[in-house]
């Protein structure tokens, strides 16, 4: 029995929810290192052009899915799968992703509105979790994103988050003429 074939079967059976490296190791009675190594191989092998399925690793979560290029055809077989994220939820999730761990108040400050409903919804979708309490008065909850978040946005890890855009003053913006020089990223 081939190790990678066995792992492939397990990843297939896990379906939409995916399966964690840890679970794969437990079920297959292999060490985490061996599992990781074989998952990397599977990810690579499945990217070959003559496979319609692709295996992805997002954080510790491994999932098998159809390839994006067959989206149109596959949609005809399945019911379509709309995004569950409202603009407010997406905005909240973005702020959590870039500033995690973060309290609700800090999210509110950036958005200028109360974000408690969005945070609750994101939690129920499993995209964020409470990752402890901030060491400040009232010990507010700290939120961070999950591996499911990585998966929903096709990221391998948080380092893959695209850099936060930097706002450049327009040429005729006379208000902060020195801004360009002073606030440039250190090289």
């Amino acid at each position: 029995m081939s190790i990678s074939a066995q792992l492939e079967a397990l990843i297939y059976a896990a379906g939409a929810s995916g399966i964690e490296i840890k679970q794969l190791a437990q079920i297959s009675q292999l060490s985490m290192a061996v599992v990781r190594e074989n998952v990397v191989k599977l990810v690579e092998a499945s990217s070959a052009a003559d496979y319609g399925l692709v295996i992805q690793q997002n954080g510790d979560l491994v999932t098998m899915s159809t390839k994006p290029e067959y989206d149109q055809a596959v949609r005809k077989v399945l019911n379509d799968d709309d995004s569950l994220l409202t603009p407010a939820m997406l905005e909240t999730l973005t702020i959590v992703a870039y500033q995690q761990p973060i309290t609700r108040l800090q999210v509110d400050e950036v958005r200028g509105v109360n974000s408690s409903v969005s945070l609750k919804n994101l939690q129920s979708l499993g995209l964020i979790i409470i990752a402890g309490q901030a060491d400040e008065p009232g010990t507010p909850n700290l939120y961070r994103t999950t591996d499911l978040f990585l998966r929903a946005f096709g990221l391998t890890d948080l380092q893959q988050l695209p850099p936060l855009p930097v706002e450049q003053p327009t040429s005729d913006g006379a208000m902060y003429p020195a801004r360009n020089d002073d606030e440039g990223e250190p090289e």
Partner: protein
Amino acid sequence: MSNATLKIHLTDFDGPLELLLHLIKDSEMDIYDINIKEITDQYFKYLQKMKETQLEVAGEFFVMAAKLMHIKSQWLLAEEIDDDQEEEDPRADLVEQLLEYKRYQQASHRLQKRERQQQKLHTIIPSRRNQDVEIAAHEFEVMVLQNAWQRIIRRKRQVNVGPLNQIEEWRFSLADQAAFIIDQVQQNPTQPLFFSQLFSPRSEPEEIVTDFLAVLTLAKQQVVRITQTQGKTNFIIESRKNKHVN
């Protein structure tokens, strides 16, 4: 103010910062040199329109209105004094806040693009025996129900022509609909009952709303069990064994 501005839904447009950015962009102002008098006028006009169209205006919008008034008064004062002294620009904090917000707004658009790409990848729904799946109270996902509800309403709009925004008389009671649902579930215990089977496409919104609330209540009382269907377009209502209804 353009009509296009008013077409934006409050759900898409849910904060004073987003509104301000929109107004600044619409009037082609430089974000580093906001015409504070004009933007304050526009902001107040917008709030007025929101009230006229009877949208619920969140408290944050008024906080921003007060802030704008404050900046405006400082601005007018500074113009009057005009003593060539380097005073701090009263707009500085607001501009910083707007820029910070804009950065995250742009980042969220980028993430949204990634999400759309990712949604082109489809996975299978794991095959599990339904009977073995128990949903504990803390695992209950409101979003699943919300999603089902939204689809039902969307489909209903396509079938029904009547207005959805007026309810003349509430003729359905929670107790009646709950009894009706239990009856339906128990009539044929082996057959799955889909939520949409409880009413016809021509049912009035009150009926659907009451049915929906009744199902939620029954699920909470653990009288029925709700299972999500494949494709998330509907949900199944099942009787929970060993539970008796009074």
